[in-house]
């Protein structure tokens, strides 16, 4: 089982003019086998939510709680959160020059499992994951994210999702910058993850495009650091037709 519970989360960042509150009380529960889409206009705090869950040092939690299966996530370091079963697919995956993808994947898998993966099955697993995401096997020898196209970066994130097998995946605008073929490949990867027992997905997106391939159980509209509305998949269709205007106006 896996339940990510976010309660009244307040988060601020340091700016030149002092701390600025970005998240203003977010409450959200992602239960077993649930996929939640968070949609909202730029600057609404969607990415801040993703990075705060992952523990990025730039963001300061000033109130509220985040728990994973009852464990206090906010008390954990960044790597402890990952080992507890959280995964963040980033909008802008970071280049790590000189560190090969295969070394990176093996190191991460070893850290998550607490022991090195069995060599023979691991090589097969890696090659399988790369192949399913339409990445050439030679991909393993390249430096992490260095010189990757936008699509390769996102597919590499989903390959990690597949190999590291977390409990809950937070996908931060994984669809942005993808052409239709890459979007399908990435969506299939996410769907393979969802089909497994007891996985949770928090899908953050600006556009409804990806929701044609990944059907969420719940849709939350995020405006000005808060959930402004929520509903089922039909809410996404409504957003596609009407946009965020009425929510943005209501928030002002």
């Amino acid at each position, binding site marked *: 089982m896996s339940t990510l519970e976010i309660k009244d989360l307040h988060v601020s960042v340091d700016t030149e003019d002092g701390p600025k509150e970005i998240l203003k009380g977010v409450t959200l529960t992602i239960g077993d086998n649930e996929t939640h889409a968070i949609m909202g206009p730029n600057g609404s705090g969607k990415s801040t939510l993703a990075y705060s869950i*992952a*523990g*990025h*040092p730039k963001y300061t939690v000033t109130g509220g709680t985040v728990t994973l299966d009852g464990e206090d996530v906010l008390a954990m*370091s*960044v*790597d402890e*959160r*990952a*080992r507890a079963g959280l*995964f*963040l697919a*980033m909008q802008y*995956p*970071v*280049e*790590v*020059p*000189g*560190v090969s993808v295969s*070394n*990176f994947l093996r*190191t*991460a898998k070893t*850290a*998550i499992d607490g022991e090195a993966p069995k060599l023979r099955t691991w090589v097969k697993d890696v090659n399988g994951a790369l192949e399913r995401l339409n990445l050439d096997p030679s991909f393993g020898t390249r*430096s992490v994210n260095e010189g990757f196209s936008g699509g390769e970066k996102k597919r590499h994130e989903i390959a*990690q999702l597949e190999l*590291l097998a977390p409990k809950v995946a937070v996908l931060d605008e994984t669809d942005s910058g993808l052409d239709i073929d890459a979007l399908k490949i990435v969506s299939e990867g996410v769907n393979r993850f969802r089909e497994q027992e007891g996985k949770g997905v928090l899908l953050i997106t600006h556009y409804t495009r990806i929701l044609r391939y990944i059907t969420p159980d719940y849709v939350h509209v995020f405006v000005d650091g808060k959930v402004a509305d929520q509903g089922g998949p039909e809410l996404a269709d409504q957003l596609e037709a009407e946009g965020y205007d009425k929510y943005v106006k209501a928030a002002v």
Partner: protein
Amino acid sequence: MTVTDAARESVASALEADQVVSHLNPPASYDLADHPVPTGREEIWRFTPLKRLRGVLEGTPSDDRLTWDTTLPDGVTVSTISTAEARALGELAPNDRPSALAVELAGGATLVDVPAELETDGPVLIDLHGESADQLVWGHLVIRVGAYAKATVVLTHTGSARYSATTSVLVGEGAQVNVLTLQDWDDDAVHLGRDAIRVGRDATVRHTAVSFGGDLVRLHANVEYDGPGGDAELLGLYFADAGQHLEHRLFADHNAPKTKSNVVYKGALQGEGAHAVWIGNVLIRKVAEGIETYEENRNLVLTDGCQADSVPNLEIETGEIEGAGHASAVGRFDDEQLFYLRSRGVSEPEARRLVVHGFFNDLVRKVGVPSVEEKLLATVEEELSKNVLQELS
């Protein structure tokens, strides 16, 4: 003005063009009077803590020697030649006081000779070892690689000494040469070295300086060309620990057209008083049309209390060049890189280790001497264990 005067003037201006001197690299000369004892304010000395040279610049004669242990592939010879013979071979004249003193006081040179067209079956290994920093050693070396030969030379320095040496690498037409000098000294060693390379027409040279040990290491790697088509790659890797001064000075003198130089030095610093200095200079002379050059230095500062000085220079006398560029950076760990790795479950020390290995990996792969590459990765690991790998308390 008469025609003769005009001709004379144009000859004079042509000569002057030939004599363009780099302000960072005073003209080479065997005459000690041309290399006065520095005060520390000179451009070429201002980064070097002169006191820690422990009297080397005084030029005291000494018969002390490093012990030599050599492994020679078939066909390669090592012999002793006189100072005059070294000069007659066309070695590159000294360009600073320590190298001038080395020629003056070494009492002859060692010649490593790779005959023309020889493709060696393994690297030339020269292991140099000093017993103690009380020893004052003057070194004079000439490495001659004949036309179209193919050779790798690895010089390893261990133990301790106060060592000042000048080395010339004379590369024949079309030859392919890989020279690596590893400074793996004990903590109290002082090493002043000047490696100067003359690249033959269409020859390819790679020179790598690796500095880990020593209290003070100050090395020049200079390159000039004997004709068009020469290609020089100057690589460096260093790891400065607490109290260490590691200084690398690069000079690519493009004195022939269609020549190439590519300089990449990478270093890490850790511990109180670790000091790295990198001075890169490229001179593109009027005659050197159609050349390509790039110089780059990157420093990774791992702890507080370190200092990295990195100064790239470019002196250009002609506009007709293919490409010229430089880059220099001094930085700490990139927080975003560490976050990315840690968000995949990797602990902070392990993430730091990955980043530092990655930082050096590209360079280590270029070295082109497999046995040394392995040792370099192991040494990087050893250096990291001093600091980066220790769990933060």
